[in-house]
């Protein structure tokens, strides 16, 4: 499964690999795209043994006609002998991502999920540009879950463009070349005499032209262009890539017509609410459903099978109320009287667990990166600074609580879901229902936010199971309370940092220990804590020039489902590192921005796998050759942020302050200067943010800007307001009343985003804005108030700050 390509340390923890789980022995899907080519989009792969499987797979897909495989040997069309499955489908489908009708309509099939990042606009921009299509004739269609056909659909890890830019360009260029070849054939001229222009092929020597649609009939019949003939546009030739483009879903999104998960309505559909165990691993001891069944509209009460920890992507189980409408289901569930066996996690308590984590980071951990020898360097340093930080569990709290719709007819399962990973949904539903994945179809709706929550298809399984039990379509609707209390949570984390300064204030030693329950514990039993390689998610890949470093991770057993949430462990790594650098700067008596630039040091391009990282030395799924640590890129974004933010324009009055931080994550470099205003009552406002971003080539600059705006505002939530805490194994918070997030008043008046122009390999965009923001916010609060925030959320810590003796004054 490619789903954790960006989190390779999870490679052995996929649900199918959990030995002894209730789901072992479930047949594999007919084709696993990763078995041979983790980087598909491919219906095909080389080698005879897979030919039969491929044909069967194509048959089950109902595909015919021209199908192009973009495998490791380039783009090619399957030959005629392999496509004996009926007539060519109309319209022409020359590539998994592209269909062209004889009416000239170009349909681009978006295989990635849209959750606000704009991929349904960005992917078509690239393909249509390379095709020289007429944008007004382009349409976007959302792909069902089918990774053998499309390549990875797992929309997380900020991978859509960084993994697919070259493939999208190649897809567009292939279709363009085919259409040009078709025109050349029709006109009896050489292919190099014709060219595509805005939806037509033209022969400038004679002034002839033909629209794309009129060339489809001929294009079907001709050979594929050799890969060597494909022309990928130069920057000067591009119409839309890297330029402004209006997002394609704006009209439905502003008129209420866009379809999100819960908006799918099927004839005869029932609504289900499930009472799930409040403690991870809990089970139903007894249930009295007599009152629930008396609620008008409630039709049935059904037990949902749970999965003991590690429950992976499978449902928690519980008791489902099936009703004719949502309100009846809500009331029915309220009327259930359930006694739970809480199980092994019943004592999970956040206050006690915090002490465990703090004890863990005060002892040596497993090293994820070692440079020089930190212990004697700290001992020999002129000054040693120590600080500890704490970040609680967080929840995605995406605006759309998860929901899924399913129906089961004749052994075939069909589901509609706002899922980030429809292939994982398909495979997991198949395992949960013990059916062949070939008999599961997953349609992808728009996602009302995802942030990682909707990569986990437990809710799709629930809908599929209940639809089969009920014999009618079912929508499983989670409430906000369900969403906060039964989710996959961001890890709680403790950090311990020690820094050694020499006499000139230069950092000569850096010890960083963190402890946090691992995502791996959601997928494998008896996981004692994170693997040291996981520190490459924002702790061991820091762009600092320090001669002695030890970056370590401590033990932490998970007592709830841990999942990935926008930027994952770089959230707490970024906060701790960004804060500690600022603490060191103040200890050294330096301007924090100057200090940061000195810490980054001279420009270096480093393969960190050869610079102290433990194996396998992960790099967000990329090679260190393609994406080395480039400290010059970090330096440039810091300088850009300093320059554009007015950092050097002089100090702000007390109560206002600026903070700076930089982070490399998901292969991109982002520096932020955050300006805060702290009111006398401790309320934090953010008047202005300056972000500088080097993400390599940026295909859709406005959506990159919007991702930075959103990342900053989400980081404000993480830093200032949000916390999930446990007592007696249960989540304490229940809704937005006590799980607080950023609202309009505190939101920035100005978010000034500067994108570094680059033709470099693309990095991520959706996540890399989060890690530097937390530290920059905390540093700005320190600059404004003298209060150093080391434990999140800030919450009410700043109440009465004006009369407090401050760290700065101590």
């Amino acid at each position: 499964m490619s789903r954790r390509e960006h989190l390779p340390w999870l490679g052995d923890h996929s649900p199918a690999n959990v030995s002894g789980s209730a789901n072992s022995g479930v047949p594999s899907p007919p084709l696993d795209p990763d078995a041979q080519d983790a980087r598909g989009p491919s219906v095909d792969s080389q080698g005879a043994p897979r030919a039969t499987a491929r044909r069967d797979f194509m048959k089950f897909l109902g595909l015919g006609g021209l199908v192009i495989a973009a495998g490791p040997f380039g783009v090619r069309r399957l030959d005629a002998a392999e496509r004996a499955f009926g007539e060519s489908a109309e319209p022409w489908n020359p590539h998994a991502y592209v269909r062209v009708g004889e009416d000239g309509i170009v349909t681009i099939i978006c295989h990635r999920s849209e959750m606000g990042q704009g991929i349904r606009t960005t992917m078509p921009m690239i393909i249509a540009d390379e095709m020289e299509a007429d944008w007004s004739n382009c349409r976007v269609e959302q792909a069902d879950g089918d990774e053998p056909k499309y390549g990875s659909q797992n929309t997380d890890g900020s991978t859509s463009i960084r993994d697919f830019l070259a493939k999208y360009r190649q897809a567009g260029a292939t279709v363009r070349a085919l259409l040009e070849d078709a025109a050349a054939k029709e006109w009896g001229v050489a292919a190099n005499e014709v060219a595509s222009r805005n939806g037509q092929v033209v022969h400038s020597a004679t002034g002839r032209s033909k629209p794309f649609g009129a060339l489809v009939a001929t294009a079907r019949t001709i050979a594929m262009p050799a890969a060597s003939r494909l022309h990928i546009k130069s920057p000067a030739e591009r119409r839309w890539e890297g330029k402004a483009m209006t997002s394609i879903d704006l009209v439905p999104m502003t008129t209420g017509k866009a379809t999100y998960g819960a908006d799918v309505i099927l004839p005869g559909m029932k609504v289900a609410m499930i009472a799930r165990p409040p403690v991870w691993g809990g089970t139903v001891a007894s249930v009295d459903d007599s009152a629930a069944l008396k609620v008008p509209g409630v039709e049935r009460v059904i037990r949902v099978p749970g999965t003991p920890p590690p429950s992976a992507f499978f449902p928690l189980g519980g008791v489902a109320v099936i009703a004719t409408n949502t309100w009846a289901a809500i009331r029915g569930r309220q009327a259930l009287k359930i006694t739970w066996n809480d199980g092994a996690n019943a004592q999970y308590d956040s206050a006690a667990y915090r002490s465990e984590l703090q004890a863990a980071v005060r002892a040596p951990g497993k090293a994820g990166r070692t440079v020089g020898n930190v212990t004697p360097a700290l001992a020999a340093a002129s000054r040693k600074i120590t600080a500890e930080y704490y970040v609680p569990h967080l929840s995605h709290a995406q605006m759309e609580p998860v929901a899924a719709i399913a129906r089961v007819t004749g052994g075939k399962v069909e589901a509609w879901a706002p899922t980030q990973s429809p292939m994982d949904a398909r495979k997991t539903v198949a395992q949960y229902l013990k059916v062949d994945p070939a008999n599961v179809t997953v349609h992808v709706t728009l996602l009302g936010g995802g942030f990682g929550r909707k990569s986990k298809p437990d809710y799709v399984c629930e809908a599929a199971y209940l639809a089969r039990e009920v014999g009618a379509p079912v929508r499983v609707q989670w409430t906000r309370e369900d969403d906060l209390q039964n989710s996959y949570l961001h890890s709680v984390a403790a950090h311990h940092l020690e820094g050694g300064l020499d006499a000139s204030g230069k950092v000569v030693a850096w010890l960083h220990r963190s402890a946090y329950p691992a995502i791996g514990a959601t997928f494998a039993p008896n996981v004692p804590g994170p693997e040291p390689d996981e520190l490459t998610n924002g702790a061991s890949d820091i762009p600092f020039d320090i001669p002695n470093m030890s970056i370590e991770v401590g033990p932490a057993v998970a007592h709830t489902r841990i999942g990935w949430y926008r930027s994952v462990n770089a959230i707490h790594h970024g906060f701790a590192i960004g804060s500690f650098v600022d603490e060191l700067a103040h200890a050294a008596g330096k301007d924090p921005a100057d200090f940061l630039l000195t810490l980054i040091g001279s420009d270096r391009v480093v393969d960190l796998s050869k610079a102290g990282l433990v194996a396998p030395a992960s790099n967000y799924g990329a090679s260190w050759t393609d994406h080395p640590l480039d400290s010059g890129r970090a330096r440039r974004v810091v300088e850009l942020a300093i320059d554009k933010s007015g950092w050097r324009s002089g100090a702000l009055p007390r109560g206002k302050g600026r903070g700076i931080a930089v982070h490399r994550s998901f292969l991109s470099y982002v520096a932020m200067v955050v300006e805060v205003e702290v009111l006398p009552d401790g309320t934090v406002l953010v008047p202005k943010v300056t972000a500088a971003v080097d993400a390599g080539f940026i295909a859709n600059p406005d959506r990159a800007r919007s991702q930075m705006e959103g990342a900053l505002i989400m980081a404000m939530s993480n830093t200032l307001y949000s916390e999930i805490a446990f007592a007696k194994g249960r989540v304490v918070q229940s809704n937005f009343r006590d799980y607080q997030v950023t609202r309009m008043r505190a939101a920035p008046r100005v978010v000034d985003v500067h994108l570094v122009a680059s033709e470099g390999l693309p990095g991520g965009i959706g996540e890399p804005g989060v890690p530097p923001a937390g530290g920059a916010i905390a540093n700005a609060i320190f600059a404004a108030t003298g209060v150093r925030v080391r434990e999140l959320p800030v919450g009410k810590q700043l109440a009465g700050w004006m009369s407090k003796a401050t760290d700065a004054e101590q």
Partner: protein
Amino acid sequence: MSDPAAPPITEDAPSAPITLTVNGTSRTFDGDPTMPLLWFLRDELSLTGTKYGCGISQCGACTVHVNGAPARACQRRMGSLGGARVTTIEGLHPSGEHPLQVAWRTIDVPQCGFCQSGQIMQAANLLSTTPRPTDEQIDSAMTGHICRCGTYPRIRAAIKSAAEKGS
């Protein structure tokens, strides 16, 4: 699983059908009078532009207009809506060209888009009562609406843009 904020279940008093107007069309409801307007709109009328986000009037995703004033559809019981005039995002403007809808598109406000129906409905009421709102008035009017994607700066800009065009 608990829904601490959901209303207590009370005796189901028999009630007469009620009639209300939704987006200009007369509708009749003859179900549980405690049902929030939200679920009537979504489940019975298939008007799915009005979103469920929290159920306790904390997020604003379900904002509609009831008798011309913004209301959280998750908090308005059907039993209290006899004769009411309800407007949802689908009925805000006949062709979806309300100045706010246009401004939302021009400024490319939405990311995931899920909260935007409620945001637009709230902002429409703001502009109808305060044609040229200040930042503080925008903050005050919009603070009940959550956007996890973080579109607040663009929402503010779009409200101002629509206000300028409307004046």
